[in-house]
């Protein structure tokens, strides 16, 4: 298993950042993400906890050797489950790949929460565990290294995509006064 971890602080409040979480796609910076579907969603009217399942479809060619070992096409499905707790201002999302799940498992966790020292800023934690199964260890290790590199590249372009959407949301909210101005939702 290989681990990837990243941390970032956004200079916008939690309300804007979580709005961008829903509006990130489609995005020219992440052309490999071709479909994002909300397949389940419910809301607890008492607590306000909003739970969502999204199915994300990516097109991404693997290098020939990886494709040969794993026998893959170029279409990958990812399932994401998220919970928003609006009282504590936490958005947590966990995702895993559906395609080739038993051979190569990528499990990602992300959390957005306000910076406790400055509620106009948002902290972002990201971690991914990447595990290749059922191969001799040298091959597993090669596949894992490749996958970590791919994950890092995607995380980079994903962050750029996210920031672009975030700026757009903040701009338009400033014009129309629609977003709450602090991280506090209630």
């Amino acid at each position, binding site marked *: 298993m290989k681990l990837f971890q990243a941390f970032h602080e956004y200079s916008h409040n939690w309300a804007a950042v979580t*709005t961008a979480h829903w509006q990130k796609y489609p995005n020219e910076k992440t052309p490999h993400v071709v479909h994002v*579907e909300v397949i389940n969603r419910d809301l607890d009217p008492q607590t306000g906890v909003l739970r969502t399942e999204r*199915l994300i479809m990516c097109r991404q060619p693997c290098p020939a050797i990886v494709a040969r070992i794993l026998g893959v096409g170029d279409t990958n499905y990812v399932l994401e489950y998220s919970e928003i707790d609006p009282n504590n201002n936490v958005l947590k999302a966990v995702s895993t790949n559906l395609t080739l799940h038993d051979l190569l498992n990528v499990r990602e966790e992300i959390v957005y929460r306000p910076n406790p020292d400055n509620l106009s800023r948002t902290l972002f934690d990201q971690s991914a565990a990447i595990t290749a199964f059922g191969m001799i260890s040298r091959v597993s290790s090669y596949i894992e290294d490749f996958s970590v590199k791919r994950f890092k590249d995607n995380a980079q372009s994903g962050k750029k995509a996210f920031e672009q959407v975030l700026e757009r949301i903040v701009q338009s909210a400033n014009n129309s006064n629609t977003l709450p101005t602090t991280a506090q*939702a209630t």
Partner: protein
Amino acid sequence: MTASQPKTMESVGKECTELKHQYEDCFNQWYTERYLKGDYTPQCQALFDKYRQCVMKTLQEKNLIGTIDAARKELGSDFKP
């Protein structure tokens, strides 16, 4: 926003695309204007039901329902297929 920024995304089932956009427009507006301000009254359920029904049909045709259900347990989700 740059000129080449795509504004809309097709649904995995082409015939669901219009329903997807109607639902997402409703949700995005509700999220910023209601939910984030502490109003937890659901507003887009009818649009979601129509969109979801269409997508699930497509996913069934692609034989993905079982795969999704196996993965959701690992993610701590207790949604049903």
